[in-house]
């Protein structure tokens, strides 16, 4: 991993098309501006990890679905507060 120090307003260039600039520094929070082509997806890492973890938790083998669960037993309508 390349580790760089940047001051406010300084930039980093990644490849030909990606640029990162330090927009603001406030306490322990760094505000970053990112310029990248639309094909490059930019995500807070914890959001991507959240989806990875959720997918892993959701994973269920076909055998389990067949033997363990009859999909018909899952509730398929939302019970809202107006329903008694």
């Amino acid at each position, binding site marked *: 991993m390349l580790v760089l120090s940047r001051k406010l307003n300084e930039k980093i260039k990644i490849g030909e098309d990606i640029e990162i600039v330090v927009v603001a520094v406030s306490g322990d929070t760094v505000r970053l501006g990112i310029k990248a082509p*639309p*094909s490059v*997806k930019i*995500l*807070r890492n914890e*959001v*991507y990890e*959240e*989806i*990875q*973890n*959720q*997918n*892993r*938790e*959701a*994973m*269920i*083998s*076909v*055998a*389990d*679905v*067949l033997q*363990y*669960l009859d*999909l*018909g*037993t*899952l*509730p*398929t*309508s*939302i*019970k*809202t*507060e107006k329903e008694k």
Partner: protein
Amino acid sequence: MSASQELKPQKAHEYYFPKGLPGFEETRYFQLLEEEMPFAQLVAADDDKIGFILIQPEVVGVKNEWEIDPETEQVLRGGKSSESQLQLEVWLILTLNRQDVQSSTVNLKAPLILNPEEKLGVQLILDDERYSSRQPLVKQQAEKGVKG
């Protein structure tokens, strides 16, 4: 699949996910098995231990909400340029709560977007706090101090 485990006849379609799924980035081909509405299963083509229960978004009261960015649209078109309206199918991944099925949740934050014509799929991640990755399947009654 052994002969003793007969799947009831299902419609199965193979989809190509160019980026796999988060957590399963190496898996590209998935079978979409349509089950009794509103459910489906998504199963890795070469490993039936990698599977997901899918549910239609309408079941949790959500429909056509997601803005597909142009890049994702391009991926779903298979790089073919076309002016025609893209017909897409959206499914949500269900996380089964094996101890308490009623408490199962659906992932609104990362819907599966499928192009049935090209058999392409992506899992779109929405960095938007409006959408939970663990949305309850069954809406809890509002806590007003009154139960039941």
